């Protein structure tokens, strides 16, 4: 695997706490890599160290094999798309995009700027100041401003969080298509596991400053190594020494033959639009949420049921 960016035993301590605790990670070149975790897990600090806004307390950062942890941001060939976009309000979209090229001493910035304007579909809006652009347009200017520099790694800090929910799913796909087209490594941070699952080639999950697991989306979803990863990637039913996803947990009124099952009592039923989530109490402090079709059997609280599953769908933590 060709690695573009390596984090080796990165630690970041602040006065009162350790934000990043011994994180080692290799980002494959040309991939769309997501760093996910709950707020306060250290993902933002990790991104800021890669960008150069923070310096690690210890550990090394290698970009194309070269150590960069002590370089200032303006000497690192990575670029950041900020959560707030951080567009220069006194400059037009075009001038924002040309800013980095000019700092590099490029004389004729127009060809590169025009090309990237086309790429992010901003042609015609380039003379506008940021305050005259919509949220989605601002984001595309921010993307263009970084992409035009052809960085080794593009860092995206919660790129979709400032957008309307309706727009988010659409932009998700656009972002992935854009990454494929330009071939630049995207390192994206998010706290939204759906976003990470649908976008990423690889995902790294962080919790309390530590790296929990890194792998492909399917691996993390189907073969989590820790309880935290299992729960963070999606809802889990814990049945003793293994877990089940709601979509692989079935409900039946009769005990199914040839499949493992447990008896339970319906507690609640939640309508989710495309399906129902029915929660059953299994006794011994255990309970399970089952995803059932909304036009199937209707379950009432208090009803006795059988919760069943396929043995192959059991999730056993693999330390």
């Amino acid at each position, binding site marked *: 695997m060709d690695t573009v960016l390596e984090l080796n035993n990165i630690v970041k301590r602040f006065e009162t706490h350790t934000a990043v605790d011994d994180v080692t990670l290799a980002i494959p070149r040309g991939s769309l890599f997501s760093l996910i975790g709950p707020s306060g897990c250290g993902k933002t600090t990790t991104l800021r160290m890669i*960008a*150069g*806004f923070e310096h690690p307390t210890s550990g090394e950062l290698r970009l194309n094999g070269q150590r960069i942890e002590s370089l200032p941001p*303006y000497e690192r060939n990575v670029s*950041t798309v900020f959560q*707030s976009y*951080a567009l*220069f*309000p006194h400059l037009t979209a075009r001038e924002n995009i040309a800013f980095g090229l000019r*700092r590099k001493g490029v004389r004729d910035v127009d060809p590169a700027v025009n090309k990237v304007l086309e790429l992010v579909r901003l042609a015609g809006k380039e003379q506008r100041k940021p305050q005259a652009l919509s949220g989605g347009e601002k984001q595309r200017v921010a993307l263009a401003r970084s992409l035009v520099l052809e960085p080794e790694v593009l860092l995206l800090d919660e790129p979709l969080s400032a957008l309307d929910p309706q727009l988010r799913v659409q932009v998700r796909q656009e972002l992935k298509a854009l990454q494929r087209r330009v071939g630049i490594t995207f390192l994206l941070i998010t706290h939204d596991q759906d976003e990470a699952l649908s976008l990423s080639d690889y995902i790294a999950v962080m919790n309390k400053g530590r790296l929990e697991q890194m792998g492909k989306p399917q691996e993390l979803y189907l073969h989590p190594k820790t309880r935290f990863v299992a729960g963070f990637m999606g809802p889990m039913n814990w049945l003793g020494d293994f877990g089940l996803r709601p979509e692989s947990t079935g409900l039946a009124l009769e005990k199914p033959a040839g499949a493992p099952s447990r008896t339970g009592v319906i507690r609640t039923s939640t309508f989710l639009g495309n399906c129902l989530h029915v929660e059953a109490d299994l006794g011994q402090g255990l309970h399970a949420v089952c995803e059932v079709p909304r036009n199937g059997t209707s379950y009432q609280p208090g009803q006795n049921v059988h919760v069943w599953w396929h043995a192959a769908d059991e999730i056993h933590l693999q330390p």
Partner: protein
Amino acid sequence: MTRLRWWCLSPAGLLLGLLFLVPLGIVARYSFLTRGPYGGVELPYSLENYKLLADPLYLAIFVRSIGYAGLATALCVAAGFPLALFIARSGRRRSLYLALVVVPFWTSFLVRTYAWMFLLRDTGLINTALLRMGLIGEPLQLLYTPFAVILGLVYGFLPFMILPIYATLERLDPALVEAAADLGARPMDTLFRVIVPLASPGILAGSLLVFISCLGSYLTPDLLGGGKTIMIGNLVQNQFTAARDWPFGAALSLVLMATILLLLLPLLRRKEGLL
């Protein structure tokens, strides 16, 4: 809501109306009257006072005053902007430093100007120290020079530059500075291409305050400039006291106001869209 809005205007409105506009009207009327033998004004109306202004002596004072005020303003920007940036970047200590900027106002301006006289005079602290160190053979003429006047102006009005610049810098999104560095801008590039342009409303506001205050000041040039009539303020003061030529003093005041307005009009129109 609308009525409340008008009530909000009334305290300042009354104050300005009675204590500013009315006296201004009186001054305007005086400027077209004839001087009385012992001060005061008499009829008939005339334009004599304005004709007097064409005298090269007075013109020179006008030009010099504008020059001094401009230089003092430039020096205030040069000293005030970095200080404002320092304070804005000082985290929790911001309020402490801001308080220190305002501390001089706790003492009368007159007392502070006298303090400068003690520092600058031939037997003052600066000259004594330089003499003792053997760096100079005889005292430098510091007091009663243009240098002393400009120093006094910068000292006196620097806080009026720092505070508005600080206000704009404090609102500046730190992510913009990071974004500039991220895009390859070295610190000086970030300063002049991002921070200064975004702080320009503060720089402009501070410059207006300082320039106008300097142009009309008379205490500083009077005490530190040696009582010589070197700025318009002193000239105006002279007409109402020693020279007993109230109409001419009134005409000077109005021309000073008109000058300031004329100088600032293009600035206001371009930068703020106020007019």
